C-alpha cells in the first residue's frame, strides 16, 4: 500500500472515531467507547505505517543521490519532516499520541470527541490545500540535525496544545449558561470553524476532485466563487447549530461527571507539557538558524509568530496566578493560544506569504 492510501485510511478513521466518540457521549455504552478508541488506534497505526513508508521512500532517494553517506546520517537526512505536508502529518500524529496517553491516564474518553475531529480536520486540510506531496531532495540549509530536533520537538508541543484546545473548549461549554456571553460566542465561532473546515474539504473533494496531470501528479482544482459563497452559508448554519446545541452538549458532559476542575487540570497539564516543548522548539530553531546563517533571531514572521504563541501561553500560565482568573478566562487564553499555534504554523505560510514575497514551504 502506498503512503497516501494509508494516510487516507487514517483520515477517515479519525473522522469515524469522532462519530463513535460522540455516539459514546450520547448513548454511554462501553462497547461504543472501546470501538471509538479502537478506531482511533487503527487510524494511528495507519498513519504510523504511512510515515514509515514515506521515510523509507525518501531514504532510498537519499541513498541514490549520496551513496557514500553513513546509514545513521541517511536516516536523519531522510526523516519525513521536511516540508509543510510532512510536518502537518507529524503534528497530527503527535497529537494523537498525546491524546491516547491522556485517555489512558485519565481513563476518560470524552476528550476524544474533540481531539479526533481536530486530527481529521488537519489531515483533511492537507487534501484541501493541494500542497505538494513530492519527496523533494533537501536543499543545503535544511541538512541539519538541529532542524530535525526543532521540527520533532515543536510538533510534539503543538500536539499537546491541540489537546489543551479540546479541554479548554469543553471547559467553556461547561462554564457558560448564557448563549450571549462573549466566551460562549467565542468557542462557538472557533468550534464551528473547525467543523466547517472538515465539511468544506469533503465537499471540495467530491464536487471538484483534483485532476491528474501529465506527469502523474494530482493538480488541485479551484472551485468557483459560488462554492465559497455556499460555504459561507454553510458556516452560518453550522454556527447557528453549534450556538443553539452547545448547551445540550453541556448536559452530556455533566452526565459524565466531567467537572470544570478536571478539565482545567488537563488543560493546564497539557500546556505544562507543551510550553517547555515550544520553548525548546524555538531554541533549537534559533540554534539551527544560527549555524546556517549566523543569525539566531531575525524577527521573520514565522519566528515572531512562534514568539507570540509563546507569549500567549506565558499569559495563560501567569493568569492562573491572579485571583479570580482560574476557569473561564484562562480557558479563553488556552483557545487563543491554539489559534496562535495554528496561525504560526499555517497562517504565516498561507496568508502572510501571500501578502509578502516569502516562499511557501
Amino acid at each position, binding site marked *: 500500500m502506498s503512503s497516501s492510501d494509508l494516510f487516507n485510511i487514517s483520515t477517515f478513521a479519525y473522522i469515524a472515531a469522532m462519530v463513535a466518540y460522540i455516539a459514546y457521549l450520547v448513548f454511554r455504552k462501553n462497547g461504543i467507547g472501546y470501538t471509538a478508541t479502537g478506531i482511533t488506534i487503527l487510524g494511528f497505526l495507519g498513519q504510523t505505517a504511512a510515515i514509515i513508508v514515506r521515510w523509507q521512500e525518501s531514504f532510498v532517494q537519499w541513498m541514490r543521490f549520496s551513496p557514500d553517506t553513513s546509514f545513521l546520517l541517511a536516516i536523519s537526512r531522510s526523516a519525513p519532516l521536511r516540508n509543510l505536508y510532512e510536518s502537518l502529518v507529524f503534528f497530527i500524529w503527535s497529537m494523537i499520541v498525546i491524546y491516547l496517553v491522556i485517555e489512558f491516564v485519565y481513563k476518560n474518553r470524552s476528550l476524544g470527541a474533540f481531539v479526533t475531529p481536530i486530527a481529521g480536520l488537519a489531515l483533511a486540510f492537507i487534501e484541501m490545500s493541494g500542497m505538494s506531496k513530492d519527496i523533494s531532495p533537501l536543499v543545503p*540549509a535544511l541538512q541539519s540535525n538541529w532542524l530535525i530536533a526543532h521540527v520533532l520537538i515543536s510538533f510534539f508541543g503543538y500536539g499537546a496544545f491541540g489537546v489543551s484546545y479540546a479541554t479548554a473548549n469543553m471547559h467553556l461549554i461547561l462554564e457558560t449558561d448564557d448563549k450571549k456571553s462573549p466566551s460562549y460566542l467565542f468557542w462557538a465561532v472557533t468550534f464551528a470553524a473547525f467543523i466547517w473546515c472538515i465539511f468544506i474539504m469533503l465537499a471540495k473533494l467530491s464536487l471538484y476532485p483534483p485532476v491528474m496531470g501529465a506527469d502523474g501528479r494530482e493538480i488541485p482544482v479551484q472551485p468557483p466563487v459560488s462554492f465559497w459563497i455556499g460555504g459561507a452559508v454553510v458556516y452560518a448554519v453550522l454556527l447557528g447549530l453549534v450556538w443553539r446545541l452547545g448547551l445540550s452538549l453541556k448536559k452530556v458532559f455533566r452526565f459524565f461527571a466531567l467537572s470544570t476542575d478536571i478539565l482545567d487540570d488537563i488543560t493546564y497539564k497539557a500546556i505544562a507539557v507543551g510550553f*517547555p516543548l515550544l520553548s*525548546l522548539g524555538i531554541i533549537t530553531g534559533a540554534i539551527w538558524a544560527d549555524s546556517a546563517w549566523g543569525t*539566531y533571531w531575525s524577527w521573520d514572521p514565522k519566528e515572531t509568530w512562534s514568539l*507570540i504563541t509563546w507569549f500567549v501561553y506565558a499569559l495563560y500560565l501567569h493568569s492562573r496566578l491572579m485571583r479570580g482568573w482560574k476557569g473561564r478566562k484562562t480557558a479563553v487564553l488556552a483557545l487563543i493560544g491554539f489559534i496562535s499555534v495554528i496561525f504560526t504554523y499555517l497562517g504565516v505560510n498561507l496568508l502572510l506569504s501571500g501578502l509578502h514575497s516569502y516562499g511557501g514551504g
Partner: protein
Amino acid sequence: MTTQKNLSLPDRIWKFFASVTLAIILIAALALTSIVGTIIEQNAGYEKNIKVLSTFVGEGLAPAAYRIFDAMGFMNMYHSWWFLTLLSLFALNLTICSIDRLPRIWKLVTDPMIPLKENVLRNLAIRKEFTVSASLETAQSATEQVLKGHGFAFNTAPEDGGGTQVFGQKGGYSRLGVYVVHGSILVIFVGSIIGGIFGFKGGLNLPEGATSDVVYLYGSGSQVPLGFEVKCNWYETEFYGSSDQPKLFKSELSVIENGQEILRKWIRVNDPLVYKGVTFYQSSYGPISSPEDGYFVFTANTPGVENETIWAKKNQPFQIPGTDIFATVVDFSPALGTNRQTGQLYTYTSSMNNPAVKMVFTREGKETLKPGWIWKRWPQTGKLTDEITLDFTHYWGAQFTGLQVRKDPGVWLVYLGCTLMSIALFVAFFMSHRKVWVRIESDRKQTRVLLGASASKNRHSFEKAVDKMVSELTVKSEGGNS
C-alpha cells in the same frame, strides 16, 4: 492586605513593578504589537508595504496609513524606541518581581522542617493511616529506610505520647526552577544586547583566489576591518543527480595573518569557519561577469600518467601529458543544455549549473581527434579515446563565494540562557518540593502509623509515590528483613 495608601512612593513603585498584573499587561502588549510587525514587512521599502496596506485600507488611504505607520516606527518596529521600551519594562518587571519573591521562596527551600501536631497532619492534602503488627522500633527503622530509599532527607523527633515522628523532604530546590526560567530570559536579553553593541553582521563576496581583510556591514555597507585576511581558495556547488537542485554549497577558505596561512577549512551551509570570534558562513554564490584570471582545470589520465592536474587558459594550447596532443579551450558555457526538440546546444542559465568547455585538439599543428564539448558533470564526455581521458573538473576564478560574516561576543550568553531555560522549565513543571511526616505510636500490641504529605506541584504523582511508600513500609516492618 495592606492598603496602598500607607506605602511610600518608592514602595509603591516597587510594588507596581513586582506585580504579575503588570507582567500580564506587558506580555499581552508585546504579543499584540509583534503581530503588526509580521503583517507590515519590516525594512521592506515603500512599494511593498503600500501594497500590503492597500489590501487592508484600500489604495486611496494606503499612502496616509503608510505615513502614520512610518512615523510610529512600524516599518522597523522591533528596533523602534517604543518596542525597546516595552522590552526594557518587561525586563525590569521580571527582575523586580523575582527579587521581591525570592527571599520568601528561599526560606521555603532552606527552612528546616519541624514535626507536625496530629491535628495539623490530619489536614494535609495527602493522608494515610494504618497499623502494622510490629514494634515501634521496627516500624521506625522501616520508615527511615523507606524515606531514605525514596531520596528524602529526614529527621526524627520524639512525640509527647511516647511515639516518634519521622519527617523528611526532597526536591526543595525545584522551587527555584521558575526563578531560573525568569533569570534565563534576562541572560538571553543581556547576551543579545552585548551582541548588538559589540558585534557586527556583514557580508563579503570573495572571488576564487581573492583575499580580503574587511567585511561590509549589512544596512550601511560600511567597512569593518577583520584584523586578519581571509582568502577563498575554491568554491563548489554539488547537485542532486542530474538535476539542477543544489545539494551542497562549499568553499575552501584560508585565514592569513602576517602573510602566513594560519588555518584552512572547507565551509558549507550549517558548517561555518570561526576565527578570533568572527564566524564566516556560506550564504550565497554567483558568477563573476567577466573573469580575467579564470583557469580551466583538467585532470588527465593517459598511458603512464595518472590524475595529473592541468591549469589552462582560454585559447592557449596545452599538451595532454603522456601524449603529443595539444588541447585548446575555445569556448565555455556555464550551463550547457540540449534543446529537446531541435537537439541544439544552448546556455540555459548564467549561473554555473552545468559548465562545459569546447575543445579542439591538434597534433603537430594539424587537427586530430574530433573537437567537442566536455561537461564537468558528465565525466564520460572527457573520454577522448580508449586510453586518453581529460576530465574538466573546474573553471577556477569565475565564481565568488558569498559569505555572511558575524561577530557576536554575546552569543555564548544567549546559548547559556537557552540551556538554563531548557533545564529550568523541566524542573519548574515536572519536579516538586515533596514533604512527608510519619507519626508512629504504639497501639496495644500493634503500631499505628499516621502519614501526611504535601507537594508543591503534581500532587497526583506524589500520591502514587506515597502509596508505594506505604506498601513498602508495611512489608518492611512486618516481613522484617527485605
